[in-house]
């Protein structure tokens, strides 16, 4: 089981920046390399686990490079670390490198864009629990919204390499073609479905694209694309697992669809967190309890970030 292979060891490690490539517009892919103990700890990172990056000392970009909507907040000081999951983890010799897919949304990710090769970054991790593979899984559906595509790329790799008998299909959604966090310009292949995303195709995983405005792939939310696919599928339900990462409203809908179709579902949740190691207790996720109407708060950092979709008390708050 994937769960058992998760890293037991975690710590505060120094990583070296290998690359920090702008994929397009606000999307970047940062590659960090660990050696020594850090390499050992991160080599065992499970898909869906995360790390906390200290970006407090990272430089701001030049004024011209700051997007208008962030100009007002750009110079805010960063105190707390920021959590990121991984789009890829690779081990070569005694080094481990991790890929972080990120979007520039605030002062910390803005600073992140200036990280350049050979700079070092303090990384706390690997943290939390990743996706798991239930016994008897035959088909895995990876459903992402926007930046949620990151950890599902890592999962696609793990599933295809460690579980060759499982069929894997990716569904990637966003508001528009521009908002899809992939390198390939999808508006140029707008109506083309299947094998369209190199990030998944390189693992032999077919991918379906959905955009709210129809500028690429299916017109409508990715959950609509998923529903339609499940409606056509003859084997929906049996031995199928949905793995999902994206905005919470989307995850709630995915969990609802999964419940209707009696499909196992795992969701990667996001919460504001200070520490990532269950000290601060801030990243509470309201969860159902079995045999009672009471709910409990679990911690996104410690009990998650991946939860069973049926466990999360969607929309109660």
């Amino acid at each position: 089981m994937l769960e058992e292979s998760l890293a037991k060891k975690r710590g505060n490690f120094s990583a070296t920046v290998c690359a920090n490539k702008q994929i397009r517009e606000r999307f970047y892919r940062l590659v960090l390399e660990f050696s020594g103990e850090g390499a050992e700890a991160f080599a065992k990172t499970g898909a869906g686990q995360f790390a906390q990056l200290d970006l407090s000392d990272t430089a701001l970009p030049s004024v011209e490079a700051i997007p208008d909507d962030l100009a007002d907040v750009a110079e805010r000081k960063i105190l707390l670390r920021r959590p990121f999951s991984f789009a890829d983890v690779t081990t070569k010799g005694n080094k481990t490198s991790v890929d972080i897919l990120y979007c520039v949304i605030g002062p910390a990710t803005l600073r992140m864009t200036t990280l350049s090769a050979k700079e070092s970054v303090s990384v706390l991790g690997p943290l939390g629990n990743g996706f798991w593979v239930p016994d008897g899984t035959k088909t895995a559906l990876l459903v992402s919204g926007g930046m949620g595509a990151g950890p599902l790329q890592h999962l696609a790799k793990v599933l295809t390499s460690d579980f060759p008998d499982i069929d894997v299909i990716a569904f990637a959604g966003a508001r528009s073609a521009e908002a899809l966090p992939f390198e390939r310009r999808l508006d140029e292949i707008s109506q083309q479905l299947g094998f369209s995303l190199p990030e998944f195709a390189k693992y032999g995983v077919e991918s379906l694209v959905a955009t709210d405005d129809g500028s690429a792939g299916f017109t409508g939310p990715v959950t609509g694309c998923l529903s339609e696919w499940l409606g056509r599928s003859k084997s929906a339900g049996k031995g199928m697992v949905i793995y999902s990462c994206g905005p919470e409203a989307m995850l709630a809908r995915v969990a609802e669809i999964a419940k209707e179709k009696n499909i196992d579902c795992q969701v990667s949740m996001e919460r504001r967190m200070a520490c990532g190691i269950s000290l601060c207790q801030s990243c509470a996720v309201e969860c159902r309890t079995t045999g009672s109407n009471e709910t409990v708060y679990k911690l996104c950092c410690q009990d998650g970030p991946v939860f069973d979709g049926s466990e999360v008390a969607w929309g109660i708050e």
Partner: protein
Amino acid sequence: MSEEVDISVEFAGIRLANPVFTASGTSGYADELGDFMDVSSLGGFITKSITVKPRKGNATPRIVETDSGMLNAIGWANIGLDAFIDEKLGALEKLSCSVFVNIAGETIDEYVAVAERLAGERAIAGLELNISCPNVELGGISFGTEPEQVAEVTSAVKKVSGDKVLMVKLPPAVTNVSVIAQVAVDSGADALSLINTFTAMVIDIETRKPVLANRTGGLSGPAIKPIAVYLVNKVYEEVTKSLGIPILGMGGIRTVSDAIEFIIAGASAVAVGTANFVDPGCTAKIVEGIKKYCAGKNISNVKELVGSLEAEQDAAN
């Protein structure tokens, strides 16, 4: 440079190996810190708030970062007294540092119930009475701002706390903190800890709603440090110095020099809070740094530093 610096301190009758604690609510029940530092290398450890019954805590968002600080409104999320004793005390007993349990309640009876049960536990050196938490509807700060209430809860808990050191944690935002401090000492406090967080608010200007689900939260971090240093010095000069009552100073400490400022101001020991979220091993570095500072200043015993603030600014300046 003197090689042998004694940084052990006597704190209300307890011998601490060094004057550094982790602050309540920033280091869990201690087991969470184990991957990042040797908790036994601390002078003291303070648990998160323990209440008679388990508490779920507040809805999310529970935290928000501010310039050089953060607000939290966790709401005393904890496993409750019984589970704490069954599941956590065993590990705490193995620590070689002094363990304090932060106790909280909505009524005086609840404080008393927790104190009474813990008074007989060998693992515990002392109790920290939380009468200054800004994030719960009942109890907490409402006990800490009215002198009559402070007297009542402190003396009630003192009666049942046996030989445990009773430390009262003071709120910062009162008309005169020395009045509250004096009442606490007169009612049986063996030590004082200050300061707790400041009640504060952050507003989302798009929605015009408070960012925190609890509306307000407690401000902590470097932003509050100078106020904390001032209040520690005020209470030291006006209340505790003449009585020989020790102060545990806290509020925004993250570096060695921060800790030393508090000691010079009058704190016999210091607690590190928010900084644990960023660097969970920072307290171990602060312990070493205090030793180095003393050696560099030819101070053979850290005691010499406590309350060593020079009275007047040098006239030549």
